[in-house]
């Protein structure tokens, strides 16, 4: 009996028992399907061993793709090019709106155009290490291998990457790497890559191979005879509940940062599609692995609706500091050098202001917790360009960061050329997601998860410029092979929408909408979401403790109970109703938030973005526990009762775990 279940029926006081090797015993439910042999040959081997669908037979298969961001659009386009019959769904008015569009910095690829020692192996190595040894080596190596094809494909599509004077592609550096391997299109790399994938998909729409369904939100996955065979969606304009059948379903539905209410994600980003799939049998892996980005514009008031990221590149020239004394309210220009604490330079002399994201974020929180934060709220630190302007001149700084300074000025009405910027960490990306095997298939056969929606490639911390790479790798170069293998191997029976499974799922979706509108309580959806975000940020944010996590589990459960009793949802279900859509998403966050806290509670170590205050070195750094926690934690839905935990042990054959040090 290897399927370990954690402390049933004691929700708030979950205790983890572990005793030596028993800890990491693999769950029989989790077959990673990783091929054998040297890591560098596994993908080629797998591709050769996979079954193929004859070109003439591909059009007989229907594939549903939910989401049209980088992963979804690239998968839809590529599968349609191959001849599959694709149905693409998005809740936006247009597929071009997905949040991939907001990625600024760039996309990594092991091209070694810079001739500076990069290679597929080095990108693989950096990513496994950057993920703090909690990612699956085989997946990461494949990611590094196909990274080079992604750049070629995007250039051919007309993505206007930055060029050098000779006309060749330009590169820059990003955190966690010592080579220049990041390709970029000004500060709008995500936008240009998404438009490339979107245009490729719209070409297939023109040809009739992709049928586009906009303003549709997925509310359920329909499982027939143990396999994913369709989805239930709500037409957001008419309110109609629709049933769609397919031979396989791809979820490319992004991450769940908005469980924190305030994050850098777009307002509509949500966990609903992934969560509904989870409730139908897809295991959720490492939900507590979230990335908190250190350089965001701080919160300015209660009305604040979202946070805005300022590029990591600013830390190349900006110096981070706070006053030495708590409660020092002088203007920054009035605080002399000897009264300033450049805390990153002090604590990490080797890397200084360029320590990785997780380390920089925690250090900023620590000084604010000591009462040394600046600004009206005391929840921000200075990012000061004074020295850089003196050394290099204002023109040089303007040339390097002009657009970012402009954006900062626009939002805050402060001039960062004259006084230091104020920044604070914000939730930015989620490494956890639906558990998938090497084929990107979830624990429901026929249901695949791509991009940020899956858990597989970034471990406990994602490196900058790797999210775009992973979304496109999954969509352009992985799923076209693995999906074919699934369709060629499985015998799928003929189904109709008259089947009980479809009818029941559609009925349940409708009843839930009706229920939300019928409560007519006194508290708005916005208030519930904000309250949930507060609980999550305080207890499941940058610093986590056993006590805080237990409290969060109880508080989230209580808030959920209140939601279903006292939420006030305005409008009706027969017309466009963004407020109702929000209510439905918040209802799922209220279930998901508890699982996140539970996962963080059970993982009694600190790694990457997961920092448990009980587990740190004497110097305050993250203390990993590879003996007990070098595994993927995959949670199974248990009808609202304490969820069973399944483990996939992680073997590091190539990159041997070591303590990350930036001192």
């Amino acid at each position, binding site marked *: 009996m290897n399927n370990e279940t954690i402390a049933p029926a004691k929700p708030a006081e979950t205790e983890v028992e572990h005793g030596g090797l028993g800890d990491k015993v693999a769950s029989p439910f989790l077959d990673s399907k990783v091929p054998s042999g040297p890591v560098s040959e596994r993908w080629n081997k797998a591709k050769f061993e996979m079954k193929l669908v004859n070109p003439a037979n591909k059009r007989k298969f229907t594939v549903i793709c939910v989401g049209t961001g980088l992963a979804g659009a690239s998968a839809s386009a590529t599968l349609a090019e191959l001849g599959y019959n694709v149905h693409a769904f998005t809740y936006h008015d247009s597929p071009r709106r997905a949040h991939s569009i907001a990625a600024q910095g760039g996309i990594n690829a092991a091209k070694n155009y810079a001739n500076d020692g990069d290679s597929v192996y080095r990108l693989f190595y950096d990513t496994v290490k950057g993920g703090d040894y909690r990612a699956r080596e085989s997946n990461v190596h494949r990611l590094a291998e196909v990274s080079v094809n992604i750049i070629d494909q995007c250039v051919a599509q*007309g993505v206007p990457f930055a060029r050098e004077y000779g006309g060749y592609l330009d590169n820059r550096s990003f955190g966690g790497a010592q080579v220049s391997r990041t390709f970029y299109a000004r500060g709008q790399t995500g936008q240009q890559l998404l438009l490339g994938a979107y245009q490729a998909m719209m070409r297939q729409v023109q040809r009739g191979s992709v049928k586009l369904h906009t303003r549709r939100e997925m509310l359920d996955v329909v499982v027939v005879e143990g396999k994913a065979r369709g989805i239930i969606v709500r037409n957001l304009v008419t309110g109609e509940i629709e049933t769609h059948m397919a031979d396989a379903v791809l979820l490319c539905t992004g991450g769940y940062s908005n469980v924190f209410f305030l994050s850098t994600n777009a307002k509509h980003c949500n966990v609903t599609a992934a969560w509904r799939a989870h409730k139908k049998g897809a295991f959720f892996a490492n939900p507590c692995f979230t990335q908190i980005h250190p350089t965001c514009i701080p919160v300015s008031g209660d009305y604040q609706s979202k946070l805005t990221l300022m590029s990591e590149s600013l830390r190349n020239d900006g110096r981070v500091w706070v006053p030495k004394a708590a409660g020092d309210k002088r203007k920054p220009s009035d605080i002399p050098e000897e009264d300033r604490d450049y805390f990153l330079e002090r604590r990490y002399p080797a890397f200084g202001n360029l320590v990785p994201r997780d380390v920089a974020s925690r250090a900023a929180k620590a000084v604010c917790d000591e009462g040394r934060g600046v600004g009206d709220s005391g929840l921000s630190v200075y990012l000061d360009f004074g020295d850089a302007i003196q050394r290099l001149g204002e023109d040089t700084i303007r040339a390097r960061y002009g657009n970012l300074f402009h954006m900062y000025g626009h939002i805050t009405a402060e001039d960062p050329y004259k006084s230091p910027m104020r920044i604070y960490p914000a939730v930015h990306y989620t490494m956890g997601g639906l558990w998938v095997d090497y084929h990107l298939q979830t624990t429901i056969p026929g249901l695949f998860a791509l991009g940020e929606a899956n858990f597989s490639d970034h471990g406990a911390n994602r490196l900058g410029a790797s999210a775009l790479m992973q979304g496109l790798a999954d969509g352009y170069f992985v799923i076209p092979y693995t999906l074919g293998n699934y369709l060629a191997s499985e015998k799928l029976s003929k189904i109709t929408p008259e089947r009980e499974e479809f009818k029941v799922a559609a009925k349940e979706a409708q009843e839930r909408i009706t229920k939300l509108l019928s409560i007519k309580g006194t508290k708005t959806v916005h208030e519930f979401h904000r309250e949930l975000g507060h609980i999550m940020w305080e207890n499941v944010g940058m610093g986590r403790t056993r006590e805080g996590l237990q409290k969060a589990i109880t508080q989230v459960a209580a808030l959920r109970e209140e939601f279903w009793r006292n939420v006030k949802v305005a409008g009706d279900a027969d017309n466009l109703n963004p407020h109702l859509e929000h209510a439905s998403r918040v209802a799922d966050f209220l279930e998901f938030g508890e699982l996140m806290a539970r996962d963080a509670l059970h993982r009694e170590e600190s790694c990457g973005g997961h920092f448990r205050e009980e587990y740190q070195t004497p110097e305050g750094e993250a203390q990993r526990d590879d003996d007990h926690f070098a595994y993927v934690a995959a949670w199974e839905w248990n009808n609202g009762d304490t969820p069973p935990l399944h483990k996939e042990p992680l073997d590091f054959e190539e990159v041997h775990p070591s303590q990350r040090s930036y001192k």
Partner: protein
Amino acid sequence: MATQTNGSKKPMNLKLLVWRQKNGMSKGAMTTYEAKNVSPDMSFLEMLDVVNEDIIKSGGEPIAFEHDCREGICGSCGLMINGVAHGPDEGTTVCQLHMRSFKDGDTVVIEPWRARAFPVIKDLVVDRSAFDRIISAGGYISVNTGQAPDGNAIPIAKQSSEDAMDSAACIGCGACVAQCKNASAALFTSAKIAHLRLLPQGDPERAERALRMVAQMDEEGFGSCSNEGECEAVCPKEIGMVNISLMNREYERALISGKK
């Protein structure tokens, strides 16, 4: 179009005149709302969030408006504010417009994009799917996944790449159409034609692309361009009318050369 700046931090009270329309079938009307205690640091959409909370609390139905990233890149948001698409700040989407651009006591008129090709769905939300159909008519380079040569196989002059990027920066918000007295989609369509025309990869399909995208633009019911320049003035990404000239040249060239 000059940006006014309210330097103080004092909260403001504003009167809003908002277009309310239940759905595409029903008639709409302007409705008056009070926005009280508005902080100058709020974004315009955050101000609407607060007004909506009040409406919900008093039993009404919140004002529907489109938004998502709230950092000016997704192209979802778009409102006519006092007759100007995206409001008074230049080069700014409405989600990045802040209330410090308004004064205490101001009346603010908020309407949806107005164009035959952008029918109203509800309140301030319109259907912009015509833009997607223009792109699918030819706004792409026909390359299947896997066909691409090495990324450095085709050198592209830095300037060409920069110029292409200027055009490619379009976010598809529709402000150009909304501000144009002809409701022309020339700026949107031409930005994509220019982006792909300025790169060598776009050359093989150059003629056909121009013909097909222009034909689709007309079919959707957008008006013609009469060089008013309103589109350029309100474009949040400051995309220039030079794109329209380029589109016209491309279109004529395709017609004259008799290429399909």
